[in-house]
C-alpha cells in the first residue's frame, strides 16, 4: 500500500513514496523548483515511479504540501507544510516537542504537544533573514558553495557580529567587514549565528525539548551547532531533513 507525498517548496520539489504497511520510505527524490510547478512535480513523481518500477495505480493516495501545494493538480488533497513536518518528524522521532524547519525562503518553529499534535507555530516568510536565502547570498558574495561556506564556518575562531534583522543590510555589513580585513571563516560563522538568532527570537521564552531540525538548511555544516547555541538546547537533525515535509504528506495520505 503505497502513498505519495509531494512537497512543492519555493526552491525545491521533494517527493516521497511511503509503504503504509511496512511504515517505511520506498523511494524519495528531489529537483529544482521552476515556473511550471505542476509539470515539474509530475515529472519528479513519474521519475520516482519509473526508477522503482512502480505502476501509477499502485499509489493509493497523494497529498501535496509546501508553498506550491495548490498547483499540484494530480494530488488528491493538500495539507500545509506545518502539519506535514509534524507528521514526518513524528514518524522518525515520536517524542519530538519542537521542530525548527529552515528552508530556502522561509523558516518555521513548530511546537508539538505531548501527543505529537501541533500546538502552535511561528513562521518567517516575509524576510530573508533567518532562511537559507541568507546563506546563499553570503556564499555568492564569498564565491563559495553552501557546503564550503558551512565547512569554512567550522574553522572560525571569532564569529563576526552580523545583524539578524535584514539580509540587505547584512550584506552591506559583510562588505564592510571584508574591507576591514575580517576572515571569511568568521563572516560565515557570523551569518550562521545570525540565522540561528532569528530562529531563537521566534521561539520566544519557552521551548520544549527534544528539538528537531528539518529543512534543507539542516544539511549545511555548522548550522545545527549554531542553532543549538542560540536556542540553548540540544538540537537533533531529522533523518533526510529536506524530505520531512514530503514524508509527512505521504503519511497523511495513508490516513485519508
Amino acid at each position, binding site marked *: 500500500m503505497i502513498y505519495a507525498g509531494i512537497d512543492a517548496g519555493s526552491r525545491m520539489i521533494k517527493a516521497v513514496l511511503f509503504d503504509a504497511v511496512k511504515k517505511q520510505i520506498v523511494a524519495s527524490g528531489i529537483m529544482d523548483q521552476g515556473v511550471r510547478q505542476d509539470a515539474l512535480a509530475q515529472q519528479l513523481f513519474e521519475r520516482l515511479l519509473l526508477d522503482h518500477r512502480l505502476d501509477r495505480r499502485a499509489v493509493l493516495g497523494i497529498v501535496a504540501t509546501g*508553498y506550491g501545494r495548490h498547483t499540484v493538480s494530480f494530488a488528491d488533497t493538500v495539507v500545509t507544510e*506545518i502539519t506535514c513536518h509534524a507528521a514526518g518528524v513524528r514518524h522518525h522521532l515520536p517524542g519530538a516537542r519542537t521542530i525548527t524547519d529552515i528552508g530556502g525562503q522561509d523558516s518555521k518553529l513548530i511546537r508539538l504537544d505531548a501527543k505529537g499534535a501541533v500546538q502552535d507555530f511561528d513562521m518567517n516568510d516575509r524576510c530573508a533573514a533567518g532562511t537559507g536565502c541568507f546563506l546563499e547570498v553570503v556564499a555568492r558574495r564569498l564565491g563559495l558553495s553552501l557546503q564550503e561556506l558551512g565547512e569554512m564556518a567550522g574553522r572560525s575562531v571569532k564569529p563576526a557580529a552580523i545583524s539578524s534583522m535584514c539580509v540587505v543590510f547584512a550584506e552591506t555589513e559583510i562588505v564592510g567587514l571584508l574591507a576591514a580585513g575580517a576572515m571569511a571563516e568568521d563572516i560565515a560563522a557570523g551569518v550562521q549565528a545570525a540565522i540561528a538568532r532569528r530562529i531563537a527570537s521566534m521561539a520566544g*521564552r519557552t521551548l520544549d525539548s527534544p528539538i528537531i531540525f528539518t529543512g534543507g538548511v539542516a544539511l549545511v555544516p555548522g548550522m545545527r551547532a549554531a542553532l543549538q547555541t542560540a536556542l540553548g538546547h540540544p538540537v537533533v537533525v531529522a533523518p533526510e531533513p529536506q524530505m520531512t515535509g514530503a514524508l509527512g504528506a505521504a503519511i497523511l495520505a495513508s490516513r485519508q
Partner: protein
Amino acid sequence: MRDAPRQITLEEWDARYAELSAAGMQEPTYGGPLRRHVGEGDLRLQNLRYDNSAASLRLWNFLLTEEDRLHQARAEGRKIVGAMKDLGTVPVMAYSLPGVAAFYPDGAWWLPCIMEDSTGMLPIADSLGIDESFCPVRAMLGAFVTGGHFPIPDLLTCSVGATCDDFSAIAQRLNSLGYPILWWEIPSRRHPEPDEMEIRLPGGFSAPETQVAFVRAELERIRRALEDLVGRRLTEDALSAGIRAANRVRRLLSQLRRLTYTAKICPLPALEMLVAEMLAIHFCSDRAEARVVLEQLLREVRERVQAQQGVLSKASARVFWVNPVADLRVMNLLEECGGRICGTDYLFCHVLDKIPENLSPMEALARIALADPMVGTAADRAERICRDILAFHAEALVISRIPGASHCATEGEVIRDFVHSRVGIPVIEIEVPPVSDSYRSTLRTRLEALVEAAKERRRT
C-alpha cells in the same frame, strides 16, 4: 423572500437584490444594491463574499452610508462630535443630547482597505511625516485634510494616556494642522493597592477608586464641552436615558454574539459579525437605526439557528479572533480555510458590556471607560480572552496584528502564553496590512495550518 443561507459574491448580490426587490423587500432610505458603493470608490467590495440575507444587506448599506448621514446631520444644523480614540464612552454622552451626532474619525483606518488605497489619504499622511511605520489609522489625517469623507466635526475629543502611542502622535499632528482637540486622559488601569478601595468594573476587571474618580472628572470636562456646544445642560436624567438606549444596542449585540458563536452550524459569516460588532462603538452615527439594523439581523440569525441552517460546514474549526483586521478580505479567508469565528476581542469588547444602570451615570461611564481592554495590561486582556474562549468553546486562537500599531506590538506573546497555560488550544499570530493581496498565500498557509491543528486535536 427567504433563501438558503450562503455566502455570495458581489455579482451574485446583483441578482439576489433583484429577486429580493421583486419579492417586495422593504428598504430604508439608505438602501439599494451593494454594487452602488463600488461606483462610489469602495473597490474592495468586489473581492469580498457576503451573507445573502436582506438583514445583512441592510447592515452593509448602513455601514457604507455613514458619511452621507454625517453630511446630512451637518446640513440639518445638528452638531457633530468626533470622538477620537475613545471607543464607546463619549458617543454615549453625545447621543444623550438632542441634535448631536457623534462618530469615530479613527474609523478612517479602514478606508485604505475599503477603497484599495485609491483615496490618496496615506500619501497625505506620509507628506505630514506620519509614514507607514505608524498604524493605518494615519489615514484619518488625509480624511481631515481633504474633507472628502466626513464633515469636519464641531467638537473633537481625544483620549490619551494609556491608549496607543501611535494614535497620540497622529492626533497631535492633526492638532498642529489647526484642528482644536479637547484632550482627556485615561490612566493605565491597575489593580488596587491593599489600602485602596477596589471598584469592580464591567468585564471582570477592577481598579482603585481614585482612578475611577479621575476618569469621572475627565468625563465631566467632556460633558461641559458638550453642553457648551449645544447650549443646554446634559442632565443626569438625559444621561441615564442615553445609557439605557446604548445598553439596548449592547444587549442586541450580546444576544447576536451568543447565538452566532455558540450555534452548531455558523449562522452568520465572520465579516458581517465584525461589522455588527463595530456598531456598538458609535452606532454608525445613528443610534436608533443601529438598533433596528441589529434587531433585523438578530431575527435572521435566530431563524437560521432554529432551522439548523448556516453558511459554513458543521465541521468548521471554531476560532477565536483577537484584534480587528486591516483587510476585511481576511475574514473571508479564514472561512475559506475551514474556520469559523467563535468569539472575538476586537479591542473594544468593553462596548459589548452593559453600562451599569444602578449607579450615577457619570460614575457608570467612568467605570466602562476604564474597562477598555486597551488601557489595561496585556495579561488582563488575556484573562478575559481565556474566559470567552471557554464560553464559546473555541478550538484555536488567531492574534491579528495591525502593521505599525503600537497597542498590539508585543501583546501577542503574553496572550499566547496565557491561552496555552489556561486553555491549551493552538495559537497563531498574523500581521494583516490594509490590502493583503500579495501576502495572501502566506496568510492562507497560516490559517489552514491552524485549522488543521484544531481538527487534529479533535481526533486525538
